[in-house]
């Protein structure tokens, strides 16, 4: 194969010892008794349920639709009966509840009949394939959850497809296992993408601590357009813009997207899901999830139906009896969650079950500058922290707050244990609110000023009208002078007549 050289390194980032020694098998998790499928997706409106409580559904059946462009339809992930449609807690950043469809399993896992009309995808027009990907409910499975069809639509002049198999966060191994166990599907998924995007090449990037995944893909790859590249193992290597920089030496400008440069990035698991959807006609009803952490005996990968509970697969990994901290997603960028009853979603790539530990106390920032050495985008976190903490968003913007990718490298090295990234997220939110507020204020001011202008204009118009009227009236009066004289004369005449009459009597 043409290219297997090590790509160049980016600045900053951190190397975290990866001491997980899990097996690279993918264990089929037992069919769950019930699943919970949230109607709220990553962003956008809630989907609308097409089923009612009591309906029987088959695995893969469409159960909720959406018109929101940034959302995907929802499918039943097991066969059974709709047991409830109500609000439940979901693993989402907001911590809010969402309407969810609950399905009680009938234990049979009966599938809908699969539509394999695009099996020979090279004969299908790209738009049809994108529609099929959307209909299969595919979103970015690397953790971002961005709808795949939205990335592929309206793509012009796409040159390069980058397949992200870096899996740079320590502990997670679901992509590694997927590449080792399903290399053929990954390669065929890349071929489908090449056809859809009419791109000239695809690069699969894998960190150099995953030699087995690398050789598995290398063995299956017969396509000249696809190259597989090792990149140095270092955290944040998988961040889209940094990955593009290390592979192609193209720096996507701040504020623009990879697609502006004719590049799209997809995660390996997403690519495999695309292959399943197009070749086999299967909608996305399951994913590979890693269960790991200091609280479990066997770190393991499971292929599990979406909507199954965290508890279903945690139990299979033999957790110890100590109190645990749960985290969904990566050690660095993941989300702390409260309970094991939450449903697994499309972005749940990993569940950390860590023994609860006391966090070291936060101390003041001494501006040691460790953070700016590891910041992969070259920010000065200590300065940003100073301004963010004091809610001075204007200054924080001067120090390029929006460019922070929230990778938490700075948190990791901070000797004072300050949760820096958390402050930056809050400052970004505050800045957003302030800009909204400024926008609203500007509109309100405009409206007020227009009202003021209108009132003044009306008053002026009225004054002008009155003046005109008065002038007219006066003119009239002036004209009437002759008449007045006539009246006066007439009166006089009457008077003289009266006088005459009186004298006659």
């Amino acid at each position, binding site marked *: 194969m043409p290219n297997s050289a090590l790509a160049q390194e980016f600045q900053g980032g951190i190397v975290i010892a990866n001491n997980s020694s899990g097996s690279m098998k993918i264990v089929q998790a037992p069919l769950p008794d019930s699943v919970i499928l949230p109607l709220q997706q990553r962003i956008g409106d809630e989907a609308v349920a097409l089923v009612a409580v009591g309906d029987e559904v088959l695995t893969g059946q469409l159960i909720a639709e959406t018109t929101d462009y940034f959302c995907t339809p929802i499918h039943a992930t097991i066969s059974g009966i709709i047991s409830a449609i109500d609000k439940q807690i979901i693993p989402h950043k907001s911590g809010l509840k969402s309407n969810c469809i609950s399905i009680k399993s009938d234990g049979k896992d009966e599938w809908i009949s699969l539509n394999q009309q695009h099996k020979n995808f090279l004969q299908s027009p790209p738009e049809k394939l994108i529609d099929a990907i959307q209909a299969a409910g595919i979103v970015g499975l690397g953790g971002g959850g961005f709808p795949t069809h939205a990335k592929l639509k309206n793509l012009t002049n796409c040159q390069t497809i980058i397949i992200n198999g870096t899996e740079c966060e320590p502990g997670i191994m679901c992509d590694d296992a997927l590449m080792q166990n399903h290399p053929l599907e990954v390669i065929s998924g890349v071929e489908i993408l090449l056809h859809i995007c009419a791109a000239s090449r695809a690069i699969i990037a894998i960190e150099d601590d995953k030699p087995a995944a690398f050789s598995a893909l290398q063995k299956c790859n017969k396509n000249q357009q696809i190259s597989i590249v090792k990149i140095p193992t270092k955290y944040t290597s998988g961040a889209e813009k940094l990955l593009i920089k290390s592979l192609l030496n193209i720096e996507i400008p701040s504020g623009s997207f990879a697609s502006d440069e004719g590049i799209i990035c997809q995660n390996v698991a997403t690519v495999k899901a695309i292959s399943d959807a197009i070749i086999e006609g299967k909608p996305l009803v399951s994913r590979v999830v890693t269960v790991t952490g200091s609280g479990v005996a066997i770190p393991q990968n499971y292929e599990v139906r979406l909507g199954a509970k965290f508890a279903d697969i945690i139990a299979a990994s033999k957790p110890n009896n100590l109190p645990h901290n749960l985290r969904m997603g990566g050690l660095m960028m993941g989300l702390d969650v409260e309970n094991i009853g939450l449903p697994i979603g499309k972005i749940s790539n990993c569940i950390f079950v860590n023994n609860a530990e006391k966090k070291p106390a936060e101390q003041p920032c001494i*501006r040691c500058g460790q953070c700016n050495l590891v910041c992969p985008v070259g920010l000065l976190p200590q300065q940003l922290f100073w301004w963010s903490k004091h809610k001075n968003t204007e200054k924080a913007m001067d120090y390029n707050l929006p460019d922070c990718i929230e990778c938490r490298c700075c948190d990791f090295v901070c000797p004072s244990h300050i949760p820096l990234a958390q402050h930056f997220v809050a400052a970004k939110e505050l800045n957003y609110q302030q800009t909204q507020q400024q926008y609203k204020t500007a509109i309100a001011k405009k409206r007020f000023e227009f009202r003021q202008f209108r009132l003044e204009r009306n008053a002026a118009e009225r004054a002008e009208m009155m003046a005109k009227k008065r002038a007219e009236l006066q003119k009239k009066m002036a004209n009437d002078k002759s008449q007045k004289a006539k009246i006066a004369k007439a009166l006089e005449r009457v008077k003289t007549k009266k006088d005459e009459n009186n004298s006659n009597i």
Partner: protein
Amino acid sequence: MMRQVIYALLLGVIAEFYFFGWGVFWQILLGVSTAILVESAFLKIRKLPIKPVITDGSGALTAMLLAISIPSIAPWWIVVLGVAFALIFGKQLYGGLGHNPFNPAMLGYAFLLISYPLQMTTWAAEFLNFAQSFEAIFGINLPDALTGATKLDSLKTQLALGKSATELSINSISQAWINLGFLLGGLYLLARKIILWHIPIAFLSGVLTISSLLFLIDNSLYLPPQNHLLLGGTMLGAFFIATDPVSAATTPKGRLIYGFFIGILVVIIRVFGGYPDGVAFAVLLMNIAVPLIDYYTQPKVFGQ
């Protein structure tokens, strides 16, 4: 981290001890005790937890830096006043660790030097034992034979009297050893990555640049550059004082500028100023410039 810095100071302290005697020990003991007392009292008034601040070692480090900068036979109230001033006006009044714009130890030093120039420039001329130094510090006057002026001060006077610079440089053997001690300690900090190379290297290059320039202009009037490197507070300043992260510049480029200009200022103040050594004033002057340096030396952000 602060503790590592304190350990690294020990080599230089031992050298000072070797040449000046037990006074060094007394000064450090007095300084550190004052630091603990002053900070505890201040935190109590501010109703803040005391233990985390005392145990972070930053107050003790400030006290130690000040204690080893002042003459080993200075009366006890010098170091007590200096440390108290440094910690109250240089640190706690700004909000404590991380919030002070000036290097507290150097603020204390400058305060002492301006207020008590005599006590601040009278050094022990030979090794004083435990009892002798105790007497000197706690108020029993010493015979003049045991004391002398600061090395740099006397050099300056003698240069003015017409002796050649090379002739005099041999006298400063004790200074050189002390500086070597701090240099080794500083290298240890570099190796342990507790400090970064930018400030010390830039500082020493600054000293070297300006002193070589002066030496080339007139070698009978100005000291050779190697003397400037090994005299007074050069090494202590380069590795332990200018590198105080709180009051130093924080961008990589900014650190180079910051260190370099301190080096230049040190020599300028030494040679042309009225005070024997310039580290304290040079550091304080550059502290003022830090916000400006940081703002204009931001690294390039990805994608911009």
